[in-house]
């Protein structure tokens, strides 16, 4: 008889979300860093999420659901924020020390890696709006960074 895959219970997913929030996401500096982190837990080839710590404490299925939900929440929240706040969030991420600001600004402008930050989403317009907003926010941050370099 074929075994039915385990469906994570909503209680387990809630516990997992709390765990992810307290142990990992709370330590990251801003929603942009959280979005980049959560997108990086997704396998490029399969599109599935994986996290050793969460899988160890819960199960692989719970970890996958938790990461997918957290990713979607952070993404939607960022995608619909006013441009002013998005620019501040992007500046915070660029200045957080993950790489040299000029390197990030150049790489993001030329390669547009932010295109893969969107989760598997049911609303294509939200994804388009997010990518478009990041493009504009990036132009604003680049302009402001160049201005600061000149002074």
């Amino acid at each position: 008889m074929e075994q039915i895959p385990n469906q994570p219970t909503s209680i387990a997913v809630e516990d997992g979300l709390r765990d992810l929030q307290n142990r990992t996401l709370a330590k990251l500096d801003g929603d942009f860093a959280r979005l980049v982190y959560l997108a990086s837990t997704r396998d490029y080839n399969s599109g599935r999420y994986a996290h050793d710590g969460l899988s160890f404490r819960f199960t692989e299925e719970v970890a996958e659901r938790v990461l997918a939900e957290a990713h979607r929440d952070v993404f939607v929240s960022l995608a619909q924020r006013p441009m002013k706040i998005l620019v501040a969030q992007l500046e915070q991420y660029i200045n957080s020390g993950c790489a040299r600001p000029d390197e990030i600004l150049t790489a993001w402008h030329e390669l547009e890696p932010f295109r893969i930050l969107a989760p598997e989403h049911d609303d294509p317009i939200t994804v388009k709006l997010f990518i478009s907003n990041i493009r504009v926010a990036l132009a604003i941050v680049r302009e402001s960074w160049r201005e600061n370099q000149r002074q």
Partner: protein
Amino acid sequence: MSATLVLLWIGSLLLASLVYLLFRPGAESDDDSCLHDGNSALPSARFADRRKEQLERIFGREDWDFIRGSTSEQVQRLFLRERKVIALAWISELRRQAKSGMHLHVARARTSKELQPVVEIKLAVDYYAFLAKCGLIAAIVLLGGPMALRGMVGQAGSLSDNLRGMLDAALKPEAFSQKTGIR
């Protein structure tokens, strides 16, 4: 006299469109795919708030006021170009949803034993009026430039409401399920 002729011509066009929608060749396969995809055509209630936020972002003034007040002309041009693309994509998505809804409705109507011509004609009129409004707003966005985008949130909101109302009318499940057994 000429006004009467124009009205008659529009009426005939709408009737012809309705007949075409109901009996066009190849409609069966399209309709089948829409039946499977029927739920995605309906704007779900859980996205209602998100839609409102989305409209504010795309057509509202807040972002433009910020951009205009604190960035260079180059960034302003980029912003307006990006917003125009998004606005057109949003209108195109509404049209897609309306078309999906109508295909699903037509698929059900074709199997219905008690078709109500008046209701069908009203729905067809609403549908083409909606498509015309989409076209008009797209033309304003496309040709009107920066000024057209500002403050269009009201127009876009009413378009979104029109779509919801039309889909509600077109996809009343109880009406057809009683008559045809389709659920």
